C-alpha cells in the first residue's frame, strides 16, 4: 500500500505545534535551572572545602570562601574566591566578572609572589586549582553555548541532552543533565566523548534549603576514566547579605574584606 502524500500534510501540521511547545519548555527548564543553581538570592557567601582524590587515593585539600553578587538575575555576576588552606596558598584570591555577552573577566592575586595577574580570556574548561572541577563548573557554563533537548521526563526529574554549538571548543561531544523538578537544581551531569563513553560525572550529593533557597551543599566530580574525583562541601552559606560593591574590586585582591570573610556569627 502506498501512502498518499496529501495524508502527510495534516499529520505534520498536527505535530508541529507539539514540537514547538516542547522547544519552549526545554528553554524554560534550562533557564530556571540556571537561576536555581547560580543566582540564588541577590548575593551569597559560602565556605567551601574541596577534597581532591587521585586515582591512587591520595588526597589534597583546598579551602576557600566564595562571595558572589548578581548584577542582574540571570545576567552578569561578580565573584570572589579567597583561599585559606593549605597554608602555603593562603590569601590567594580569584576575582571573576561573569559576563553573558562576552568572555568572563578573571583576575588572580598571588601573595607569595606579590602579583596581581589577569587571566586571559579563553578556555574555561581547565582545572580549577588542580581539582576535577573546571573553572566553568564553578562559575557556571553559559546556557547559550549548548543546544538542549528533552530526553526524558519522570515524576521527579527532567533529563536533558545538551549538544555544544561549537564542538571544537569543548572536550565533550554531548552531556546529559538531570534536573530535580522540586528544586529545579541540576543534580547530575554526565559527559560523553566522541566514542559515546561517559567519562565524567558532576553530581549533587546533598541539597539543603537555606533561607528558602534550595542549595547544593555537597557535590562531586568524578573522572570515570582514571578513577580520580573531587568532592566539594559548602558550609556557612548565607544569602542576601547586602555585600557592598567595593568587595568585588581589584583592591580586595590584596586587601581581603575580612569582615565579610569571618564565618563566625
Amino acid at each position, binding site marked *: 500500500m502506498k501512502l498518499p502524500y496529501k495524508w502527510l500534510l495534516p499529520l505534520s501540521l498536527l505535530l508541529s505545534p507539539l514540537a514547538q511547545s516542547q522547544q519552549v519548555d526545554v528553554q524554560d527548564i534550562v533557564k530556571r535551572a540556571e537561576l536555581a543553581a547560580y543566582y540564588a538570592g541577590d548575593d551569597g557567601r559560602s565556605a567551601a572545602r574541596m577534597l581532591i582524590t587521585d586515582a591512587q587515593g591520595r588526597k589534597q585539600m583546598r579551602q576557600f570562601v566564595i562571595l558572589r553578587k548578581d548584577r542582574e538575575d540571570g545576567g552578569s555576576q561578580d565573584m570572589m574566591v579567597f583561599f585559606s*588552606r*593549605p*597554608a*602555603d596558598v593562603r590569601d*590567594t584570591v580569584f576575582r571573576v566578572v561573569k559576563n553573558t555577552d562576552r568572555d568572563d573577566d578573571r583576575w588572580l592575586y*598571588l601573595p*607569595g609572589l606579590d602579583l596581581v595577574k589577569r587571566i*586571559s580570556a579563553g578556555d574555561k574548561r581547565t*582545572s580549577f586549582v588542580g581539582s576535577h572541577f573546571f573553572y566553568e563548573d564553578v562559575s557556571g557554563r553559559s546556557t547559550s553555548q549548548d543546544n538542549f533537548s528533552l530526553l526524558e521526563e519522570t515524576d521527579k526529574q527532567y533529563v536533558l541532552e545538551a549538544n555544544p554549538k561549537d564542538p571544537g571548543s569543548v572536550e565533550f561531544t554531548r552531556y546529559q543533565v538531570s534536573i530535580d523538578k522540586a528544586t529545579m537544581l541540576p543534580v547530575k551531569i554526565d559527559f560523553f566523548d566522541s566514542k559515546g563513553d561517559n567519562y565524567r560525572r558532576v553530581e549533587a550529593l546533598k541539597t539543603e534549603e537555606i533561607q528558602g533557597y534550595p542549595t547544593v551543599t555537597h557535590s562531586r566530580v568524578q573522572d570515570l576514566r582514571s578513577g580520580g574525583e573531587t568532592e566539594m562541601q559548602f558550609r556557612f552559606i548565607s544569602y542576601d547579605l547586602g555585600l557592598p560593591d567595593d568587595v568585588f574590586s581589584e583592591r580586595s585582591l590584596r586587601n581581603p574584606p575580612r569582615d565579610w570573610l569571618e564565618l563566625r556569627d
Partner: protein
Amino acid sequence: MADKLIELVTAKRKLVYWGLLILTLVFVAQLPGIQIDTDPENMLPQDNPQREFHNQTKTRFSMHDMVVVGVVNPDGIYNPKTLSHLVSLTEFATGIEGVVQADLMSLANVDNIDQQEPGTIRFEWMMKTVPQTDEQAREIRDKAERLPLLYNTLVSGDGQAAALYVPITDKNQSYAIAQQLRSKISELDSQDEWHITGLPVAEDRFGYEMFVQMGISAPLAGLTIFILLWVFFRNIPFIIAPMIVAMATVLITMGLLIGMGFTVHIMSSMIAIFLMPIAVVDSVHILSEFADRYKPGDEVKKVLKEVMGHLFTPMLFTSITSTVGFLSLMITPIPPVQIFGAFVGFGIMLAYLLTVIFVPAYLSGLSEKTLLNLTQKLPDESQSKLAPALVRLGRLAGSHAKLWLAGFIALFALAVWGISQIQINDNPVRWFKADHELRIADRVLNEHFAGTYDAYLVMQQQGDASADVKALLAEIADSEELSQNTANWLLQQQQQFDASSSLSTLISAIYDKGFELDMDESDRLTELALELEKLESQSKAFLNPAVLNYMSGLQQHLKDSGLVGKSNSLSDIVKTVNRELRSGEDKDFALPDTANGVSQTLLQYQSSHRPQDLWHFVTPDYRQSLIWLQLTSGDNKDMTAVVALVKDYIAANPLPDGLQTDWAGKAYLNVVWQQQMVEGMLDSLVSAFVIVMLMMMLLFRSVSFGILAMLPLTLTITLIYGLIGWIGKDYDMPIAVLSALTLGLSVDFAIHFIERFRATWAKQQNWQQSLKLMFEEPARAISRNAIVIAMGFTPLLFAPLVPYITVGVFLASIMAISALVTLVMLPSVMALTRKWLFGSDK
C-alpha cells in the same frame, strides 16, 4: 653394573621403547602451556630491592609503559601537513582501548602557558586547531621551544622530529596497539618518516623473535647434527638412535620447565639448542666404539657389554662435569640464568640416562642386515683429511714441548692482559640486529631527541613530623586555657593521629571544632592549627626554593657533563610558570623566593588542562620528587657513568637536610642486574672450577692428573675472554653466561685424552709409541666430538637476535679451540713432567 644394565634393557626392549614414548608424550603435552617472558626487569628477582623501588617509583609518579611514535621530516615538522597528521594520530590514539588517555603526550594535546598580552597569563591547548599556514605552524614551534618540558622531548631541538608518547595499561596489548597505530599512519598518506618503538613494543618483538629462534635454530641444530652423524657413520637406522635421545631430552626438559610453571625467557629459549649437541655426544662415543668393535657374526649383546663397560664411567664423569658447569649458573643472582642452568643441567643427566638405557636397547634391536651395512659402509677414517692432520699435530705437539709451553705461557699472559681490558657493558636494545626496525627507530629518535632512555633520580624527604605533632597536641591539651571537654577531645585526636599524611585532616578537624566553641577557646585552637600548619609546610620539602635550587644545580651539572641528553624536574616547571607569571622573558626563568611563592606557582600550573602532569614530578605531599634523565644511549656503561657523576656531585655538594636519593628507571635497572651478573658469574666460575677439579682428582685418583686436566680449559677460557678484551667486544649477558658452562663442556676432552693416554701407556710403556697411538683413534674421537658440539651450535648464527649469535660464535670457537689446546698442551706438558707423572720408560 654395565653388564646388568645391558641384560636388563635388551631383555625389556619393548618396555624401554614404550616407556620413553609415553614419558616424552606426557611432557610434550605440557608444551602448549608455554609462557614467554620478555621483560628485562625479570633479570632481577621480584623482591630485589632496587626493582621494588623502581616499581614503587612508577606507581608513585603515575608512570606507565609507553609506546613511542616518532615522526621525522628532514625539512622540518612545523608545516600544516605534518602537524595535522600528528593531530589526527593523537586523536586516534586517545580513542584506542587500553591507552591511558590522560597521560598521552603529544604536541597535539599538551598545554601552552604564555602571556597573550603583557600582564596576563593563559593556559591553552598548544594546537587547539590544526595550523593552516606555514606561519601558524612556525608559531607552534616558537611556543613549543619555550617550554623546557616539551623541547627535545615532544619536539626535537632541530625541528625535524616530533614524538607521541602513548601510555598503555597492559603491555600485553602493546602489539595490538602498535598495529592500530601503524594502520592509522598508513591511512594518513604522509610523506614523512614514522617510527614506532618503546619498551613494550621491543619486548613484544623480542618474544616473537624468540619463537622464531626456537622454531628455526633448534630444528636446524638437529639437522646439522644429523648430517654430521651421517658423515661419520653413513647408516640412517644406526644414527636414528642419538637423534631420538636428543629429541626426547629436549622435549622432556622443555616440557618439565613449562609444566613446572616457569616462563621461557631469552636464556631458557636456548635450552633446546644447548641440549641437542650435548645429548648426542655420549651416543657418538657408543656408536663409534660399537662400529669399531662389531664384526659380522658377533653377538650384539656381547659387543655392547664390552663397549658399555669401557664407556660407562667416563661418560658418567663427562656428563657430571658438564652438569656441574651448568648448575654453577644457579649461583648467579639472575633468575633466568638460574633456570637455564638448572634445566640444562637436568637435561644433560637425562640425556646420559636415556643414552645408557635407550641406545643399547635400540642397537640390540637392529637387524643383522643393518649392522652388516654399517660395517661395510663405514668410511675408513685413516683415509679422511682429519686423520693425517691429527698425526702431524701429534708429531708437532710431542717434539717441541718446551717451545709449546713457552708459547702457552706467553699466550696466557697476553690473555690476562686482554681480560684487564674488558669493558663490561650491555644494552638490551642492541639484542636486536643493527638493521632491525626497532634499532633503526631507536637510532633515528636518539639522533633527533634528547634521548629515549629513561632514568630517574628520586629524592625523598626522610623523617616524619608525627612526633612533633603529637607533642604539640599534648602540650596544648595540658594548658589551662582549654575546658576539660576540649582538652579531652584534643587528646583523643592525638591518640588517633598516626601519620603526617593525615595532618591536613587533623587541622581541618581543629578548625571545625573551633566553630563549636566560645571565642577564647576557638582562638586558642586557631593558634594551635596555625602551629600545625607550620609543621605541615615544613614537611613539604619540595616547595622549598633551596631544595629546588639544589635540583637545578645538579641538573646543570648533568647537562655540562654531556652524559645526559636532558633532565626534567619540578624546578623546571616552577621556573617556567614563574616566568610567564612575571615578564615572560628569560630573566624571569627563576625560582620564587619563598615556599608559598612556589606553592602558588604550582597552583597555577594545576589550573591547566593537564593538572595531573604535576604528579609525574612530585608526590601530592611534596615529600618526594624526581629528576627525569633522558639518555641518548641505553649502554650500561653510560648509565654507570651518570650514577658515578651524581654520586660525586652529592659528595661535593651535600644534599639539603633530610633528603635522600635513590635511582629508578629501566636504564638503571639494567645496570643493577649487570653488576649482579658479573659478580655472580665470577662466583659461579670459581665454584665450577673447584668442583670440576676435585672431580678430576677423584676420577684419576691423582692430584697432579686432576690439575693437568684443568690446564687446557683454563688456557682456553682465559684466551677467549682475553680475546674479548683485545678486540673490544663488550662483556655482556651472553658472554658472561658462557664462562662457567664452557668449563663443564671443554673438560671432557681432557678427560678422554688423559684416560686414554694412561690406558695406552699402561699397555705400551713407551712414550713415543703411546703418543703416536694417541693421535690416531683417540684424537679422532675427541675431534669428532668437538666438531659435533661446535657445529651443533652454528645454527645460532642464523638466529634473529644478537645474544643468540654471540652464544653460537663463542661456543663454537671455545669448543674448537679447547679441543685443539687439549691435543697440543696435554702431550707437551706431560712430556715435561712425565717422570713425575708416569715414572720412567721401561
